[in-house]
């Protein structure tokens, strides 16, 4: 009975995983294709990688995606963390209103947020380009940082800030020496979410960016009309990068844990 049960759960899971990884494997495989075909493997070649590195727009898109994600993450993490700390001590009305606005921002279909920002920029006669793109990314990343930091703040001892003041900290010292060190993991995971949201974003970027400024998503979208196997090579690079990052993220804590354990034994 249990045997049978565990078998069907394993099969269900395996099918799902196969479905999820099929296109990834496919893309990696065909990035080494020697012909332009997207579904007929004619032989091994690295030409699409070479073409990718030679393609300036493509390389720029990687650059823009990265630089925007990095800056948007840094800025939104600072703003989001400070705002979340302030909010945790605010009156219920302010807290509720901001939570609602943040929910609106996160739950709104991306396309609506995107056209809203586009209209906003136009009304202010801001020229679409790198600046508008970056600002948009900061705007939509902040709620995710707050979403990650707020629960951790709730868990803190109610008196923790007071204890710091009691021991002679100025309010600013209480913030930097006591509160932030205690929520740094939540801040970090908020930053991580912000980074992925920014790096992955297509819809908002598509509407708010200007001529000559493409990130990976908008580049892939614009090159969809022609068949361009270099995109496969680009995808493979991304898959590789993500895999490395994920391995580091999951293995490093594990090693740390082991080190801690060893220390304890010693």
């Amino acid at each position: 009975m249990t045997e049978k049960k565990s078998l069907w759960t394993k099969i269900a899971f395996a099918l799902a995983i196969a479905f999820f990884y099929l296109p990834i494997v496919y893309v990696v495989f065909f990035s080494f294709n020697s012909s332009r075909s997207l579904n007929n493997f004619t032989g091994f070649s690295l030409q699409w990688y070479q073409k990718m590195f030679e393609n300036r727009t493509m390389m720029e898109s990687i650059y823009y995606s990265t630089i925007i994600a990095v800056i948007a993450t840094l800025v939104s993490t600072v703003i989001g963390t400070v705002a979340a700390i302030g909010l945790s001590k605010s009156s219920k009305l302010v807290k509720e209103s901001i939570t609602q606005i943040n929910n609106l921002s996160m739950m709104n279909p991306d396309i609506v947020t995107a056209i809203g920002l586009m209209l906003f920029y136009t009304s202010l006669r801001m020229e679409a380009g790198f600046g508008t793109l970056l600002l948009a990314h900061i705007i939509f990343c902040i709620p995710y940082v707050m979403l990650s930091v707020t629960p951790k703040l709730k868990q803190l001892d109610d008196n923790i800030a007071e204890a710091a003041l009691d021991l002679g900290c100025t309010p600013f010292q209480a913030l930097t020496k006591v509160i932030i060190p205690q929520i740094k993991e939540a801040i970090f995971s908020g930053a991580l979410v912000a980074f992925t949201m920014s790096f992955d974003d297509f819809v908002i970027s598509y509407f708010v960016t200007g001529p000559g400024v493409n990130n990976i998503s908008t580049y892939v979208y614009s090159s969809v009309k022609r068949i361009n196997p270099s995109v496969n090579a680009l995808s493979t690079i991304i898959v590789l990068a993500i895999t490395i990052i994920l391995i580091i993220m999951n293995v490093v804590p594990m090693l740390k844990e082991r080190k801690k354990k060893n220390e304890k034994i010693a």
Partner: protein
Amino acid sequence: MKKLIEFRNIVKAFGSQVVLKGINLDIFENEFVTLLGPSGCGKTTLLRILGGFLSQDSGEVILDGKEISNVPAYQRPINTVFQRYALFPHLDVFDNVAFGLRIKKMSEDLIKPKVERMIALVGLEGFEHRDVSMLSGGQQQRVAIARALVNEPDVLLLDEPLSALDRKLRVEMQQELKRIQQEVGITFIFVTHDQEEALTMSDKIVVMRDGVIQQIGTPLEIYNTPNNRYVANFIGNSNIVDGTMKKDYLVRFDDREYECVDFGFKPNEPVDVIIRPEDIRILPPNQGKINGQVLSVLFKGVHYESIVETRRGASKTVILHVVENRDTFNKEANEKINATDFTVDIEDVKNLTNEDLIARANAQAWIPESEEDISIASVENGLKEESGSYPVTFKTAKGTSITVNVNVVKPIVSEDAKYQIGIQAFDVYKTVDEIRESMAISVDLRTWADAYAWELDTQKEVMIDDVRFDFEPNEIVAGDYPVTFLTEGRTWKVHTTEKQEEDTAVSLDFGPDDIHVMHKEVLS
């Protein structure tokens, strides 16, 4: 002794709720002061005002002769031990303790010996580099104390610091705190709701209630001569009864007059009389002041606590009619049905729904072989809002039916005028099986009879304390049985060193100076 802190007319409100109603309090150097009261009495608010975490709406806080209301928390020479310690989990024990000194930019050479001395004072040597989250509650407590004291404050505030500890540790920490306070020689202000903590540690206790100070005094004063019933109740395990002060040195309670040592009351003033359990002696019957019966005896560690009843409570006796099971079998439909008579309050008749009737009569129908339940499809109800006996018929869809008698009665209230207690209950009709299957017969009888008691003047519900009957529920046969419901009478807690026997007749004795008479509280 020098006056260190003065609270002058402190008022504080949160929204419309006034939590401090004009507090005046002086605290001296090197005193161990306890603010005692239940949660919501304002004690923590007062402490937080002194710490600088809240500001009062009006009034002055004076420290060492200077008004400090505008001094921010981090500039006051005051440190706090918080309720759940508020230790910094990202720092180890040493760094937690050193925190305040480092903020003051003291050099590490000076910090090290100071911190080590403090860690030694609280008995945590060897724990310097432990993670604070790995420490036990008691150890965390010690870190919090060391972290505050290392700053050499003029005053240490402790906000219910022992409430999170288990009992044994709490007692240990009480002694520890007292020792530390004597060693460092500064003022401790301690907030608690635990009277035992207050009594064992304090030089001075401040009893608070609803933002008002009820009494300020030494533990002995508070214990022996409480100002009012509230303080007496809060501070210990006492016998408090209503009485009348006939004249100076003569008080009347429970229908007798007693000599006492109190004076200065108006003639015939209603008062509260308190006699501590340890001040009462137990003697053989008729040799003491009041006769009674030992209800129960509990061993309390060093003494026995006996409950002696000197007067029975109000009572009401009803008849329990036990009838044979009367399952009716309908052969054609192959259904059985069953229900019992019951009594109902005339006032309730108009509100009875069919569901109520089914429940009260315990009407059930079922298929004999499978015991599968069948629902009651209809109820024929001939009830009138007049005293009398009326038929009620329950029917299933297939026509199996049973008729029971419902007795509509006016509630008969027994009033005990002397003790101002009313009690009522109704006769009960039950089948043999229902009695035998009851898992908690006393509780069921109370429910079935709808027994209820109340104070005549306030209408407040009084617990029905005892249900007395004279049958063995498991072996009951059809017949009528008296059942008596009783409220609690006058009982006295008595602490003795020798064990008393339960159910024996005794007599209680106490002297004039064992009686303490207090003014009735004026409810604001």
